Each structure stands twice: as structure tokens, then as C-alpha cells.
């Protein structure tokens, strides 16, 4: 693998950049691998990377029906935070956060992880109770967090309307300074490059059309490029997980919903942190290119169309202009949608299945991007060892039968 650095850039400039190597190969599928990862998004690529790097499993294929990182990795609003309420979720997301903090150096790929802090605003007394509950729990779980009053919020975001004039005045916020944003595409590319360099075959334009299952055990997958064998298969296909599970004869408690986002035209820097509000329902940050990156809500119906309904966008922008009246004359450039696979308790599924050797990693709902690192790491550990990693164990499918849900709705009602 070519090392990347400022020095390398200068050196390549002299040769007109003619000597840069491919960031990943375009290999021909082998007949068999030790592990197959279905799904070449951020989570799948991270899983493959950690399998090869941390657990010595290098005979791995990542099978992607389109182009790598082309699903929700390419469509999210890039927020990374770990201030989840329940112990199980907090532990998983904080594990991810710690990996984020060294990711660029680990991958030798600048994923532009920018810890510019995330504010979750409170507008009602119940909001503030929830914020206090969450921050107290975070603190005792070793996750940074602070409860701010309205004046404290105003200090961090001077352009936010913290006046009493607002329909729902800002009463305060939770503040996680270590949280922030990252360059979403670079995460997929960095993991792909890293995994490829360690020997992982990334098979793009390759579609899994079925699983080879005999006597309750998996032996491989059928694809549009022929059958590929493996005794361990991890399915990391986000919005498409229900369809994949169906191929294996498994039902998952998932619904795939549209989740919309939008950006403004690029503006000179005006907003340095991420601001989220459950109550007026919108969240916003400004990218390094200058776009205001704005998240809209989830649409209530199932949909694979990568688009949602227009009123959702309207409501989101109403919330943004309510919070930031100065943005009224700013213009919206583009909107798009992703497909999020949501669980009844707003927590993921990291689980074995009734089919031996077949694992699922899905159900991240609106929280998938921020978990990319940790999800990949604990899933890789689970695939390598054949036992779910302790941080993954609470997220098995069983919980929907025993009732042991990890209900994050109360704390994470807003999509992001």
C-alpha cells in the first residue's frame, strides 16, 4: 500500500500524479473464502478490515451489489456521538467513538473526523429531565457530557435563537464535546483501501442472489458471478437486511423506512458545532465545504425508494429556521433519502441466527454511521471467534421474544 502524506503528495506532483496506485483492486472472485461479508457499506468494509487486521482472518470477501460505500454510508449526515442512554448502547457507541479517535492514522486515510461537539437541545421540562438523565448516565459510563443552560448554549452557538420569543424557547442542552462529524465517503474508502491491502477481496457489482444452506448450516452464497463458498457469512446490508434474511428463511423484526436529508448551498463558515433538537425536530451542521447539512425525520411508511415525502422536508426546514432565523434567505440545494432499517427498540441487531454460521449485523436505524467503527470491530470479533463479542451480546434477536429490549426511543427519538 502506498503511504499517504503531505510529502507523498509533493513527490507525486512532480510526476504529474501519474503514479498513484489503485486504492483497491478489482479482483476476480475466488471459489471459496474463510469469511464472506455481504454488503460493502461502511459497516461491512470495517468488519472485513478488522477481521484481517485484528483477528488475522485475511481470506475474506466483501460482496457488494453496487459500488462500495454507495448505500447509507454515502447518504447520511455524518454525525458521530456516543451519548446513548442505556448501558448496553452507550458501551457499544463509546467503543466506536474510541476507534473513531484514531481512525485516520490507523487507516492512513484522512476521514476528517472532526470533534467539534454535538448539542442536543431541550425545549420542555421533560426534555431537560431526559437530558439530565442521559448525561448523568453517560458520565458514570465514562462518556463525556455536560448539561448546559440556555446561556451556555448561546455561548457555543451565537447564531441560535435562544430568546423567549421562540415558540419553544431553548431551556438548555446536553453537550458532548468529543462528538462531531466525519467525511462519510472517506470512511468507506479508507476501510476498503485498508482491507484490500491486507488481502481482502472487495467484489463490487456482485449481487448475492441466495444462500447455500444445508442442514441448518451455511456453506456459501449464490451470486450473479457464480457460487462462492464460505462457512461463515456475515450479512451487513442495512435497509436490505429484511430481503436478505428472507433468502435465508429468517424473519427479522425490521422495517425499512426512508430517512431524508438535505444540504444548503455552500456558505462561508457560520456554524461550528452540530446542533440537534428532538422537540422542534431537526439537526444541522456545516461541512468543510460550507454546506449546511440538515437531517430530516424518518417517514412513517416502509420504503426502499431512497426518497420520502415532501412534508418531512418542510417540517425540518421550519424547525431549522425557527432555531436559526438568519438562515431564512439561505437556499436549499439538494435533498435525498436513505433506507434505514429500524428495530422496534431503536437499537441494532448483532446476532447469530438459526442458520449456523450465518450472522446478521443490521437494524442500526438512524444511528448507523456513528457506529461504523465499533460495529465493524465487534462484529469482526464475533465472526472470528464464532461467539458474539460481549458488547454485541445484548443485541441478539432473542430479545424480541424474551422482552429484554434496549429501548432507546426515549433518548433518541430524533433521527440522525
Amino acid at each position, binding site marked *: 500500500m502506498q503511504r499517504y502524506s503531505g510529502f507523498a503528495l509533493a513527490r507525486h506532483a512532480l510526476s504529474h500524479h501519474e503514479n498513484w496506485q489503485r486504492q483497491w483492486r478489482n479482483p476476480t472472485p475466488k471459489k471459496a473464502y474463510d469469511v464472506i461479508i455481504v454488503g460493502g457499506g461502511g459497516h461491512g468494509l470495517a468488519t472485513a478490515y478488522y477481521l484481517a487486521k485484528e483477528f488475522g482472518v485475511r481470506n475474506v470477501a466483501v460482496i457488494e451489489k453496487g459500488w462500495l460505500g454507495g448505500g447509507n454510508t454515502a447518504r447520511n449526515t455524518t454525525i458521530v456521538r456516543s451519548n446513548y442512554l442505556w448501558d448496553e448502547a452507550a458501551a457499544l457507541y463509546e467503543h466506536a467513538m474510541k476507534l473513531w479517535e484514531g481512525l485516520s492514522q490507523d487507516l492512513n486515510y484522512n476521514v476528517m473526523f472532526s470533534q467539534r461537539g454535538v448539542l442536543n437541545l431541550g425545549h420542555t421540562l421533560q426534555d431537560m429531565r431526559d437530558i439530565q438523565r442521559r448525561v448523568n448516565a453517560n458520565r458514570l459510563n465514562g462518556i463525556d457530557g455536560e448539561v448546559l443552560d440556555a446561556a451556555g448554549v448561546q455561548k457555543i452557538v451565537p447564531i441560535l435563537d435562544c430568546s423567549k420569543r421562540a415558540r419553544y424557547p431553548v431551556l438548555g442542552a446536553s453537550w458532548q464535546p468529543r462528538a462531531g462529524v466525519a467525511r462519510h465517503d472517506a470512511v468507506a474508502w479508507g476501510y476498503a483501501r485498508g482491507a484490500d491491502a491486507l488481502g481482502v477481496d472487495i467484489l463490487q457489482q456482485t449481487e448475492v442472489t441466495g444462500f447455500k444452506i444445508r442442514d441448518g448450516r451455511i456453506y456459501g452464497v449464490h451470486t450473479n458471478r457464480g457460487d462462492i463458498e464460505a462457512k461463515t457469512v456475515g450479512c451487513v446490508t442495512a435497509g436490505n437486511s429484511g*430481503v436478505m434474511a428472507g433468502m435465508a428463511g429468517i424473519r427479522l423484526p425490521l422495517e425499512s423506512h426512508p430517512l431524508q436529508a438535505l444540504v444548503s448551498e455552500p456558505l462561508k463558515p457560520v456554524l461550528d458545532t452540530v446542533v440537534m433538537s428532538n422537540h422542534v425536530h431537526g439537526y444541522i451542521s456545516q461541512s468543510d465545504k460550507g454546506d449546511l447539512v440538515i437531517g430530516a425525520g424518518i417517514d412513517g*411508511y416502509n420504503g426502499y425508494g431512497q426518497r420520502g415525502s415532501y*412534508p418531512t422536508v418542510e417540517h425540518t426546514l421550519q424547525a431549522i429556521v425557527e432555531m436559526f432565523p438568519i438562515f431564512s434567505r439561505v437556499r436549499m440545494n439538494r435533498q435525498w433519502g436513505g433506507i434505514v432499517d429500524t428495530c422496534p427498540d431503536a437499537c441494532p441487531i448483532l446476532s447469530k441466527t438459526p442458520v449456523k454460521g450465518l450472522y446478521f449485523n443490521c437494524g442500526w436505524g438512524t444511528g448507523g454511521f456513528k457506529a461504523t467503527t465499533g460495529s465493524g470491530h465487534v462484529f469482526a470479533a464475533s465472526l472470528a471467534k464464532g461467539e458474539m463479542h460481549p458488547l454485541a451480546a445484548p443485541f441478539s434477536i432473542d430479545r424480541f421474544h424474551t422482552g429484554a429490549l434496549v429501548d432507546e426511543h426515549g433518548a433518541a427519538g430524533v433521527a440522525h
Partner: protein
Amino acid sequence: MFHIYCPYCEEWREEEEFHPKGQAHIQRPIDPESCSDEEWGDYLFFRDNPRGIHHELWVHAVGCRKFFNITRHTQSYEILETYRMGETPSVTAESVKREAIAAAASTATSESAEEVRA
């Protein structure tokens, strides 16, 4: 944004008047006490999630307040049918498949079959 024919108001109305309420035709077990934990969990949490034809329960929340069913394609978002509670759908994934096969048989070109599959 969807345009929905309310089978009770007998009119096309805007999506903003409606709320989606999940999968249609979920039947609460007649005798919950005799259900296993597995069966009860399935009833509570496990839903169909097809990429394709889906039967959904909606309510005309700002309107007649009646619940009714929509058969909708979750990829194209085309609404194929709306029907009242207690009625059975005339369009299903199976019926569409059957028609597609019939249509493909009647038109010789492979291209039209391709379209139907898509």
C-alpha cells in the same frame, strides 16, 4: 408525496391527512394466554418488510378517522389499491407475479418481461 384514495370518503386526498400504521392484516392471537413467548414476540415485533408489494394499514386521521388498507409498492411507491377494513386485497405479490407471467407469455419480446420484473 402520496395521493391516496380513501375508500370511505371515496375521494383522492393528500398524504398529509393520513397516518401510516404499519403492516395490514396483523391479527392479534385469539387466545394470547396459550401463545408461547416466541409466538407473542412474533406478533408484537416481527413484520413483513418486502421490497415490492406490501399491504399497509393507514388511518385517515384528518378526515373520516377510518382505518383502511393500502397495497403499495415499496420501491416505486405506486399505490395499487386501497380497500376497507375487513376486505381482502385483490392485488397481491402473487397476483402480480401471475399477471406478469401471463403478460410475458402473451408478448413475445423479452424486453417487456424485463419491464414487468423491474
